[in-house]
């Protein structure tokens, strides 16, 4: 794994950077995109996620909405990680991300910057913030397979 990712200061910077300058944070008006509105019952986060999925591949991911730092950054990182991946690859990454959050074994290499959320599981009430975008993309991937 990228050794830098062992340094908490670096991980912090990653989150802050994605919160301040979220990637792919702009919805498009294109009916080829699947869309999912995520309004968590128990928190403020309220985001919409779009995905363009074709030939079993994630061509694009977009999102927008009002959300806390954890939700914004985790969704931004998710979008960067998964764009260009096949559904099979994406599923594996998602599974590893969930394993990390659940404090189980996971493959750091696959998660890249997403390892910044490795301690979210310790603040159990914030897990949903760190997974809201991931839940959305997983939902859209399932939709695309219907």
């Amino acid at each position: 794994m990228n050794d830098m990712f062992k340094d908490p200061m670096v991980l912090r910077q990653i989150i802050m950077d994605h919160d301040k300058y979220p990637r792919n944070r702009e919805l498009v008006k294109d009916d080829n995109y699947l869309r999912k509105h995520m309004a968590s019952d128990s928190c403020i986060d309220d985001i919409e996620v779009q995905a363009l999925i074709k030939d079993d591949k994630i061509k694009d991911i977009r999102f927008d909405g009002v959300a806390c730092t954890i939700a914004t950054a985790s969704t931004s990182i998710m979008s960067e990680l998964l764009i260009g991946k096949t559904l099979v690859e994406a599923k594996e990454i998602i599974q590893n991300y969930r394993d990390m959050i659940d404090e189980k074994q996971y493959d750091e290499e696959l998660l890249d910057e997403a390892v910044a959320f490795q301690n979210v599981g310790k603040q159990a009430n914030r897990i949903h913030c760190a997974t809201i975008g991931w839940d959305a993309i997983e939902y859209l991937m399932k939709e695309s397979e219907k």
Partner: protein
Amino acid sequence: MKIDAIRKDFPMFKNKSKKGYDLIYFDNAATTFKPMKVIEAVNEYYTKYSVNAHRGDYELSYKVDTLYESVRDTVASFINCDRKEVVFVSGTSAALNQIAFGFGQNQLKPGDVVLSDEAEHASNYLPWQHACETTGATLEFIELDEHGYVTIETFKKAIHSGVKIVSIAHVTNVLGCVLDIKEISRIAHEHGAIVVVDGAQSTPHMPVDVRDLDCDFFAFSAHKLCGPTGTGVLYGKYELLEAMEPLMLGGGSNARYDMCGNLLMKDPPYKFESGTPAIEATLGMKAAIEYIQEIGLEKIHEYESELRAYMLKRMKELDNVIIYNEDSDSGIITFNIKNVFSQDAATYFSDKGISLRSGQHCAKLLMNFLDTPSTLRASLYFYNTKEEIDYFIDVCSQINPDSFLDVFF
């Protein structure tokens, strides 16, 4: 059944009556005593995490939220359904009102029929009567047999293609008539009707599997199964919960709303749960369900049948007792002392430490089948014993038109 050990779980048995008699509690159909496990669950909320549920902004609220939501899993495994089919309500009455007003009133059209019977509890009768009145639907009754029971045969005669909703008790509260809901559901579904089951008197006493029963809605109260008052469960098949409108609106049930009239309701079960719920009562319900599951519902049912058989046998030996529901298979015995008004007899029993109910019944039911304006009802639970029954029989035998006034002199 380790009955002595079980009775030690219930602090109520430490009490004596005013005159020093042991407490003999035979009003379990009204409500039940609470074991320490339930009391402790409630106290734990008060002393360890006494905050509001449904938000996770801080450690304690997350804990309460998690605990509260875990009760849905407990209930789901208890009655065999999905956790998202478990709606928390204040009790059976609230559940039946929610169904009659939120589902019935929206779905019924003039000419539709709701099928029920004359042995239902007021909470399963009045809401349907009202829903029919406001929609132009008709409330029809299944004929009762010569004992005052609904049977599969009388049900078959009553059902027809106009029936949209059947609402019926799994076990009735006056005569303790146990109904084969699985067969009722099968027949009702053949006719295109949905089945609402009042499970207030069954859930505490026998295994309930709503998937197996295949009923569409099912309701019960925690307080009748050793849990706190003020909480209970409305089960509904998920697509029916989706079709049902909430009876109440407010904080908690809405995901988002704005002041332009746009309202995005949460999905079931949350859309039916407005306002701060009965948190400690619901945590107490979890403990209660776990408690009776530990004993085992099969065992409870078996033991109660045994008790009832014994009690009936002994009561029939007395010649001052009239029994009205000998053939029912529940822990409820409905009876009278000859020539003593039920309430006067109840006072005599109470004076000797025995708690039971004197009840009045709806006009038709009693005139047609019971031929008395009111009865006494002894209802058993798994913590009752043969020794209590022996004492009860003794007291029973003392009551007569000359003696019942003793308590006043």
